[in-house]
């Protein structure tokens, strides 16, 4: 239809020359919608930020801090106080130590005296990485210094090049440093693990009649209890073995047939007094009986394990009464590792003998039955990283935080006699170790 002429000019003349400035409806809608989308996104973000900060959370927080889950501002202290409600920008990115210290009032001493730098809490305690133990700090926080240790003064008392548990970590100190003499003087008890672990031991005898043969287990004597018999699960330390509970059933302290009561296993004087009182009552005036009884108790019974002064010189002389029996007490360290934590509880699934293999064959009370580092490294092989999931069974965590504490916030349960409690024989092993 060529009726209506269409020339370039006639076509061009129809148009408003500025049409493109007015914008196209599609384009307009594009931008409008884009704006709407952006606003929607922002609103969604904002709303979810007010409802829960999860949206901004870079990861789940640790169990310990789970209580603060919704309240970022508790740790991320507002930039300007009162602006904490403003998501993301209202709060500080870095958590200041003060925020931690507001709860963790007593963090114990850092080894500030030696460390050249004191890092803020968050440098080691990385949050938002899941329901992990916050204390499980990465090695990096330690190795930063300990990989190449320098101290502010003096010489380092510890190894200076520790990269990780498997690399550069020296063997445990008692194993490294304890001498035989030390061990003897340290423990003072004649004890043969191998005998005790024999099958078909006589077992306790009640009224002279043996009750049946028994076979002892490690746990028959070693229990994770603290010195006062409290459950020591928390600390995971083995409680010192006690005579009254662990030994007496077999090793009775009867000293006279007519006296049913056993001598107390407290001090030599108390035992002597109890003996004299009991014998004199049963055998009034019978001095011989008295002497026999004394010999039985001190020469036979006590000196079985303990060193009784005088008794050794006349071991078989039972009818000679000791003037004043002197029994050397035994010592048991409550903690073997001075700067590390070990929990038997955690290792509960492991057979004692897996680590303490030499206990089966040990015949002397002087044997140091502590496993060496290699034993540990069998499992703690450095294959798994702090915070990382267990890759494979058989590979235990090897992070520094596992054994060492930075803060030393928890006082070591060194027995301190309290009130009427008898003093615990427990001691810290390192007290015996040479000081640097």
């Amino acid at each position, binding site marked *: *239809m060529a*009726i*209506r002429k269409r020339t370039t000019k006639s*076509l061009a003349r*129809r*148009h*408003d020359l500025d*049409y*493109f400035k*007015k*914008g*196209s*409806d*599609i*384009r307009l*809608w*594009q*931008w409008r*919608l*884009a*704006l*709407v*989308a*952006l606003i*929607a*996104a*922002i609103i969604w*973000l904002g709303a*979810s930020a007010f409802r829960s900060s*999860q*949206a*901004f*959370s*870079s*990861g789940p927080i640790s169990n310990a801090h789970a209580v603060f889950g919704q309240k970022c501002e508790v740790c991320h202290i507002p930039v300007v106080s009162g602006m904490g409600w403003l998501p*993301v920008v209202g709060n500080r*990115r870095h958590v200041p130590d003060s925020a931690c210290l507001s709860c963790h009032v007593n963090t114990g001493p850092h080894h500030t005296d030696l460390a050249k730098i004191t890092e803020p809490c968050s440098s080691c305690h990385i949050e*938002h990485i899941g329901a992990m133990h916050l204390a499980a700090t990465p090695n990096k926080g330690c190795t930063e210094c300990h990989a190449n240790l320098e101290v502010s003064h003096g010489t380092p008392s510890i190894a200076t090049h520790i990269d990780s548990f498997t690399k550069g970590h020296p063997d445990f100190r008692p194993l490294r440093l304890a001498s035989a003499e030390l061990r003897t003087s340290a423990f003072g008890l004649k004890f043969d693990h191998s005998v005790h672990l024999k099958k078909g031991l006589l077992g306790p005898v009640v009224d002279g009649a043996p009750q049946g043969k028994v076979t002892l287990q490690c746990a028959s004597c070693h229990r994770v209890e603290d010195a006062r018999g409290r459950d020591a699960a928390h600390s995971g330390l083995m409680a010192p073995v006690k005579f009254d509970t662990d030994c007496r059933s077999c090793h009775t302290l009867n000293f006279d047939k007519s006296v049913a009561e056993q001598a107390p296993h407290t001090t030599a004087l108390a035992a002597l007094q109890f003996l004299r009182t009991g014998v004199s009552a049963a055998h009034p005036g019978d001095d011989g009986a008295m002497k026999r009884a004394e010999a039985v108790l001190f020469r036979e019974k006590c000196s079985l394990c303990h060193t009784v002064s005088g008794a050794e010189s006349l071991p078989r002389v039972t009818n000679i009464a000791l003037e004043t029996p002197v029994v050397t007490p035994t010592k048991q360290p409550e903690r073997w590792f001075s700067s590390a934590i070990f929990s038997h509880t955690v290792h509960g699934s492991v057979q004692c003998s897996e680590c303490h293999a030499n206990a089966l064959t040990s015949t002397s009370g002087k044997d140091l039955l502590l496993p060496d580092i290699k034993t540990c490294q069998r499992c703690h092989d450095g294959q798994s990283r702090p915070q*990382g*999931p267990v*890759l494979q069974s058989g590979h235990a965590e090897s992070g520094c935080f596992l054994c060492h504490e930075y803060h030393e916030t928890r006082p070591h349960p060194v027995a301190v006699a309290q009130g009427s409690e008898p003093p615990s024989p427990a001691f810290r092993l390192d007290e015996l170790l040479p000081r640097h």
Partner: protein
Amino acid sequence: MRIDQTHKPWLYFTLAAIALSAIVFIPYARTATQPGGGTPIGLTFGVLALALMVFAALLSVRKRFPVIRIGRSRLWLKAHLWLGFLALPMVLFHAAFHARGLLAAILMVLTIIVVASGVYGAYLQHTLPSKMFRQVPYETIYDQIPVIRAQLVTEAQQQAFNVAEMLAPARGAGATVVLTMLTVPELGAEVAAFGLFFDSEVLPYLQAERPLATRMAMYDRTRAAEEFDNYRKLFPQKAWEPITAIQDIAEEKRQLDHQLRLHHFLHGWLLMHLPLSAALLLLGFIHAFVALRY
């Protein structure tokens, strides 16, 4: 943009990039305890994905300043097309095909929608222009269609007036009257009928917006042609010209309607693509920011 030979290098590049990423990703995903955004490789993918998205979004900025000599627009568009597409595998690799957290899930969905809409748009832009070329010979500038339509109405009215004028009974005085009387019989009724037809059918159609117009009789080309033919039969040949012109005007209007439709298709997908891209970009940045910050 027509996907043609010139896109070959881009296609190869994109495929190569995907393959390379896969080669990196697969062993990593197999070995890592927890493959995801936090791991270095995941992070790398994430950063790449974000960079690609940002680049894709820059096209919009580029279009704002068409004159700046920073590479031809067609280069930009090609890059947008292929690199934008590449963002999707990058995102997938970044997230290791899992979305952890609501934001990440939203981001993932958005990316998929945006890329999908982009692919759809590319398909439309590949096919529709030639369709429009064939089907809309009277094509004009989209934004000016309302203006042109108004002009068409005026023109049609003028032509309708011409019809009436040509067939009007002679007026005035002089020889022309005689001539007119001789050649043109009285056609008052027919002219009136045509006027009615024009006013009731043609004019409303010319004035109607698209959705309404499609329901009108005039929208049907063959039917309209029949109608116009009928009127042509009624009138002497000299009046055919304006009638045909009106028919042509109606045809132009029809085509303009069609152009509107095609144009909406051609650019409508952007209504999805662009806003979602914007949202995606915003959220993506927030995601990156938050993730890197804490």
